């Protein structure tokens, strides 16, 4: 069985937000919605202090809270592990937005333009893919994956800090990295079993 997973090496991540913009370009999300975000923070006290970065997307949990709460069945977890939203079934109740422990689901209330009072040709074309009144999120670039490509955030990372592959294959790059570098997920105590692993910054 294939289980798609992502590994993000925090030792390599330079917090440049290229993944965030690559995701925006790939998905043509409206202003205010970014499926990938990079949290920037600092650790330590001067002069023994440093910057840290945490890129966050949908975790594509094996036990997703969102699927549990969805009243219409719009949110489902595919056999390959990717959690998707069928926008034709979504009624915009936002239970999933509230229940997602990682805060990575977004309700499209209105389509906001990048430049106030103006619509670029890019938006005219790209925003057709979005439906007002529904919830949207990262889908591991499903269309790219089906073409045999990796998600835009993975391919675009200029530090080569992101990896994508099959967690069910013990010899895959993602599996080996998690084993060798002690990869971890966020909030494992919640039992959601995310498919996004982080390699520590040391």
């Amino acid at each position: 069985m294939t289980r798609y997973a992502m590994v993000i090496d925090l030792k390599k991540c330079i917090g440049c937000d290229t993944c965030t913009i690559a995701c925006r370009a790939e998905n043509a999300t409206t202003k205010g919605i970014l499926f990938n975000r990079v949290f920037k923070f600092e650790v330590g006290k001067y002069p023994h202090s440093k910057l840290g970065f945490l890129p966050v997307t949908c975790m594509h949990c094996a036990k997703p809270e969102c699927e549990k709460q969805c009243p219409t069945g719009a949110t489902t977890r595919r056999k390959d592990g990717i959690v998707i939203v069928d926008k034709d079934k979504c009624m915009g109740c936002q239970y999933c937005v509230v229940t997602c422990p990682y805060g990575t689901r977004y309700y499209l209330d209105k389509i906001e333009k990048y430049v106030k009072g103006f619509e670029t040709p890019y938006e005219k074309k790209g925003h057709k893919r979005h439906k007002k009144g529904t919830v949207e999120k990262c889908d591991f670039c499903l269309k790219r994956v089906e073409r045999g490509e990796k998600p835009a955030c993975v391919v675009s990372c200029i530090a080569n800090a992101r990896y994508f592959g099959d967690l069910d294959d013990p010899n895959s790059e993602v599996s080996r990295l998690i084993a060798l570098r002690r990869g971890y997920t966020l909030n494992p105590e919640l039992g959601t079993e995310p498919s996004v692993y982080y390699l520590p910054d040391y």
Partner: protein
Amino acid sequence: MAQLTIESPRESEDKWIPSFCMMCMQADDGTLVHIEDGVVTNIIGNPDCPTNLGKVCLRSISSIMGLYNPYRVKAPLKRTNPEKGPDIDPGWVEISWDEALNIVAEKLRKIREEDPRKLLVWEGWGCAESLFITPKEVERATNYEVPGQIFAEAFGTPNVVGSHGPTCSIHYAANLVHGQHPEYISDLEHCDYLIAPGRTVGPNVATPGATRRFIQAIERGMKLVTIDPRCSVEASKGYRWIPIRPGTELAFALSMIHVILYEIRKFDIWFIKNRTNGPYLIGPDGYYVRDSETRKPLVWDPIDKKAKTFDDPSIKDYALEGEYFVGGTKTKPAFQLIKERMKEYTPEWAEKITSVPAETIRTTTKEFVEHAMIGSTIEIDGFTFPLRPAQIAGSGRGAVSHKGGMYFDLCTKIINMLVGAMEVPGGATGNRNPGPCAETLRPNEDGIVKPILEAIGVPWKFPPDHVDMAEFYPTKHTAPHLAVRAILNPEEYYLTYPIEAFLICGANPIRAICDAEIFIEAFKKVPFIVAISTQFDETTMMADIVLPESYFLERKFCRFYLVVHQSIADDVRGLEMALCRNPVPPLFNTMQIDEIIIELADRAGFLKGPGGLNDVINRTFMLTDHRKLDLDKRYSFDEIVDRRIKQIFGDEHSLEEGLKKGFIYKFSATGKKGYNYYYWPDNKTRHPIYFEYTKKTGDTLRENLKKYNVKIPGWKEEELDNFFEYFEPIPKWIPNAEFEAPPEYDLWVANWKTPFMPFATGGTQENPWLAELRENDPYEMFIHINTETAKKKGIKDGDWVEVESRYGKTKGRAKLTELIHPEVIGIPACYGRGTILMNPVAKEGPPFNVLMTAKENIALDPLSGTIDVGPRVKIRKIEEEAR
């Protein structure tokens, strides 16, 4: 107000076209642009491009929004409101290209007939894509002897001023000691220990190629020591962060030299004796002692106990220390003088100035010398090189852009030379394009690496020809801050002709420099201003005629001899490349700048004939045989580019080929040929470690001032000694002017570039995607203050604060952080200002530049011409209404 509509062509298609990026000055990333039904929908890296290997940064992808910026300049415009100012509506009316070009060409023709010096050409990073305007295209074989400012030369004006230079005058030391331009570069292939003061090695500005190399080097175990008032991304990933007071890196470097010479007492003696002018005998006048017959510099052979010319084959050894009498004159080896100068610069002395603990200076220096592995070798392609895997980086804008900053840079060269880490594997080199070759370290008649460009300097002439006072600052980088002062005060600046026209090409000095009011006044004084622009930025708003330039994605262009920045490794060593761009269909009535130049030159009468544009193109591009342009024919830009490609790569290549792939390249200096040491090994050439050439420049200038009975404009007579303190042959400590600031200015301010805005190139200020991210970024648009310092001043996170230097003030929200020196306020990038015709997001953020001044006797380093970028400031909390 300009219309906000964009019509996009309707074409049913789905294609990826090879292109390359221009969202920062580097422009070395090959891209693929996705066009679907006439709309640009995505930009990715070209996987086959050797510099970026399929990667582009966030700015590159965001350039889609730069293309579709509704606030762009869309058509040729003429001003109707005679009142000028960055915030005053010019009352633009649209005119035809024909009318616009004729107006400009007529002005150019008239000026050229009267006195071509009356035209001042402004260039900036927005113009790095012009083959004819900027001096960045220089030819290897000419060793920089052919000026690259093709348009200016054909027109006949010496007045080309770069707006990008005053806060980044970082070239002199590399021009002098490495014989390379533009700067030092970190060679990461074999380096184990890299000290990086005041500069990035890639990730701080998210450049793909350099970031890739950086991550590889860190994973390999390279130790990075970052010297910086703030803890950057790179400092966070490196071995050690050394916080420092801004503008005191010179003291740190002087102290490192002291520690090597007096405490560790271990250095690369072989290198100093054989590959520097350390053994050259210096007379009481500070100059080389020369053989009376041959005029060659002398050294002292301590075994034969006599002076010999430096290249005497009978030399058994070189004295580095002591006193020797030659022909009755007391002489000392240059090395002895350097050692004497460095005696007082102990780590305890440096600690008082820099705030860096003396122990840290000692430990870092000790580790540096150890990692240099003096005496070790490495074999590459059967050739034995010295191996010195340690470097201290020069050219760091954060450290060099201060009074005494060029002395700092020269000190980094001394430090590298002391461990032999110059132009060898593991050691320091420059980023000359296209790469290592025999020309670079070729010795002059004194046996020393030939100085180039800014190190040679501009020859004296009085009255001065250059409006930017190059005759008075012969080794400066660019000096727009002097040009505008000269325009406003021609008598004081000995300017004997008026500037009658500005041609602005991708330059925005009003925003990008300081003393904006002086710039605005000068712009108001000049009767005719034409701006070739993509945006209605602060400087474009002062124009009489605006010629709309195509956004870079719309320009068919070919960039030659791109220069790799921040770092190299074997992946790009010796790379000769032409990057080619297929344009996306233009949205508006725009032209590419070089096409505008051809058109203007033709209409103004200096395209054809001897000395015209074609002629200068032939000489600058070194076109030979059938590739040479016929002086009496008009060529399209494409045709000229095609000939250049053929000249460099061979007749079998073409622009068409380049456009198909996105590039044409070859590796012409790999393996042993990839290191400049290979071409002049052993004692065949010498780097200056005693800067006799610098002294000569200063002394010559001083003699000329006396001879013509003039002073340096902007400096008082009694300040002249202070001016010439920067032209000594051995660096020394010079406190910058801010050391004497009144105690109420109790903090320093520092600025740095970020991934969101390393430059305004490509319109980063107006870009809505970048604006969306930076508005929510916890660090980007804030005024950074150390947490403890803030507590003492009663400032809380998010409070509105005002930061004031003696020259200006700025406001913003405070960000309390552990990532900055307690005496330093940090203001990133170049925000604020904007104009009424730009996307309003361009006005956001605290402007840093207003805190600086370019007043010569206060803030300039006369050797490099740089403005001091770290003034002293005070900070106070202000009420939200007060802003």
